[in-house]
């Protein structure tokens, strides 16, 4: 079926503004993605999947500029032992990065032309699988045009996390990055990401977790204010594997984080969590789609949004249980803490179940600071502002606690506290 003219025009305008990387091992996947993109078109305001979030500034031919923001604090994760990799406005920075060799892992750059056989089989594959039943054209665009990223193949349990730091230095940068992570049987990796990547950022991470393998991901987006970002994680989980991802988003005018997980092997576990802190001109959208296609798997989605001064939070989350996926344990909670009457939270939780022996639950709430807790803390002498901050930390704790490592939980909490402290009105 032909696309509506407006959508086709917008899609072609975006394509025309980009150069398709040619040659090399990824050329076939990129060509395929371009054809798929032309068939679906980029998201438009009328698309059901974009009902709560306006896609125009994410799909326009040129990005809106975003003022470069220089935080007055040491970057997150700087204090922990890690392998550091830096990208500036979406481009790998050799000098600022550590040597990429580490026992149990091979790390290469997408922008390098060397043939990476394992990545050839994965690049664009999980993204393509994640297009059904709902198209995610920004990810398809990314597969076609991504200019840099990391190819990470994990064969053992790593002694330290791989920490990717993004830096934003050009107010008009429009970065498109694509990472591929393959965790082989017995492998276990923790990937950390932090920092503003660009004025506009389109990111895809494809994650293939083999039987018995583990993938842990902790990401912090922010604190820059004018950034726009659309990210996608596509994950495929083998039997008895573990997949855990947590995202802290502080500030940013527009963020859409999509996570698409398919549990394909029995006894696998997927936890997707996020906390966002929004103040004023802030729109944050978590869109999650989990497919249970094996027996005795567990999935948890825990999303907490702190919104003030007219900020908007969106949650679209779906659990799909395929026929035969018995003993599925699916849990989903999305909650917002509205610190004033101007802020809003829009939630669309969905369950679609085709197996009979499953336990799935979902819940969504919006509320103010807990009165009982507030009185308790104030009765102990805590000024109202400090008491409210502690209760805000308590509110997002269920999401932060999804991070396995206490050290990383503390890192995240310290940023949350600092964010709240800067806004404390006394």
């Amino acid at each position, binding site marked *: 079926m032909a696309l509506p003219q407006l959508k086709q025009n917008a899609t072609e305008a975006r394509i025309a503004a980009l150069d398709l990387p040619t040659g090399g091992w990824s050329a076939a996947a990129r060509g395929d993605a371009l054809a798929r993109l032309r068939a679906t078109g980029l998201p438009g305001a009328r698309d059901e999947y974009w009902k709560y979030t306006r896609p125009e500034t994410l799909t326009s031919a040129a990005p809106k500029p975003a003022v470069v923001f220089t935080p007055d604090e040491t970057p997150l994760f700087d204090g922990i032992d890690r392998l550091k990799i830096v990208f500036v406005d979406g481009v790998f920075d050799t000098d600022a990065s550590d040597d990429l060799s580490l026992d149990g892992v091979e790390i290469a750059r997408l922008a390098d032309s060397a043939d990476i056989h394992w990545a050839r089989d994965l690049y664009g594959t999980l993204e393509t699988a994640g297009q059904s039943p709902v198209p995610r054209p920004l990810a398809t665009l990314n597969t076609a045009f991504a200019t840099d990223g990391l190819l990470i193949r994990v064969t053992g349990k790593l002694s330290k996390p791989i920490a990717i730091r993004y830096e934003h230095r050009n107010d008009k940068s429009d970065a498109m990055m694509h990472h591929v992570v393959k965790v082989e049987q017995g492998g276990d990796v923790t990937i950390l990401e932090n920092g503003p990547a660009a004025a506009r950022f389109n990111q895809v991470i494809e994650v293939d977790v083999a039987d018995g393998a583990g993938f842990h991901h902790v990401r912090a987006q922010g604190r820059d204010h004018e950034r726009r970002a659309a990210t996608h994680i596509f994950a495929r989980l083998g039997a008895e594997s573990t997949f855990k991802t947590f995202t802290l988003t502080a500030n940013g005018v527009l963020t859409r984080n999509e996570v698409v997980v398919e549990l394909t092997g029995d006894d696998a576990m997927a936890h997707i969590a996020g906390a966002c802190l929004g103040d004023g001109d802030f729109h944050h959208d978590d869109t999650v789609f989990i497919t249970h296609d094996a027996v005795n798997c567990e999935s948890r989605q825990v999303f907490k949004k702190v919104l003030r001064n007219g900020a908007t939070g969106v949650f679209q989350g779906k659990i799909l249980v395929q026929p035969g996926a018995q003993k599925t344990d699916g849990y989903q909670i999305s909650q917002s803490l509205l610190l004033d009457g101007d802020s809003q939270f829009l939630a669309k939780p969905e369950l679609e179940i085709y197996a009979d022996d499953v336990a799935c639950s979902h819940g969504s709430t919006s509320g103010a600071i807990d009165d009982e807790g507030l*009185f308790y803390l*104030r*009765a*102990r*002498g805590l*000024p109202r502002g400090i*008491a409210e901050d*502690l209760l805000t*930390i*308590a509110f997002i704790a269920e999401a932060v606690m999804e991070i396995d490592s206490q050290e990383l939980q503390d890192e995240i909490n310290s940023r949350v506290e600092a964010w709240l402290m800067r806004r404390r009105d006394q």
Partner: protein
Amino acid sequence: MLEIKNLHVKLEEEDKQILKGVNLTVEAGKVHAIMGPNGSGKSTLSYVLSGKDGYEVTEGTATLGDVDLLGIAPEERAAAGLFLAFQYPVEILGVGNMTFLRTAVNSLRKARGQDEMSSTEFLRVVREKAKSLKIDADMLKRPVNVGFSGGEKKRNEILQMAMLEPKMCILDETDSGLDVDAMKLVADGVNALRDAGRGFLVITHYQRLLDHIKPDVVHIMSDGRIIKTGGPELALEVEHNGYSDLIEEEA
């Protein structure tokens, strides 16, 4: 020290009078007990004194020393030296007990014009006080009251009381849900804080806590009023005859 005069309180949201003229004076160094049937207004009195929302004072006064309690915020009442040990301590996920205690101690010290306690000094004091209440390092690290048993929550309240150095302590049904051993531990903690400069108001439904925390004065509350005041023997009378005789006598 604590002086309550003709206190009338109604619910803010509905037309329901709960306290109907309470008069009570607790002197420094003394332990007063309030006993009374469920629903007589004991918790309401403790909440109104500590500044909880939802109540409206329609008449009367409450002062602590020369501070008018009813006109100030809960944290200011705490700074003035008031402490309420809650009947139902609140659970606060994600905030370590120790962090909470240190924040409370230093907030109060600041409000009282004292210097912050250094971390080493704070640790030393907390460990010492926690030890006597059999509160271990794990309980200090865990989030405030989360996953604590009933007894652990009450001991945690007493630890806070010990750390915050109040002048006037109100304990609301601190004995509820405690077995005998736990109650003894809590009572020992309270007794250790008895001091010539400090007053106590112990609210309880049963007499048994008063075996361990010996009161100087006992008040009986019924339907929003104190209907009888006496010595420790009044608690024993309630123990043997229940409240109904006293209430009938009053009516």
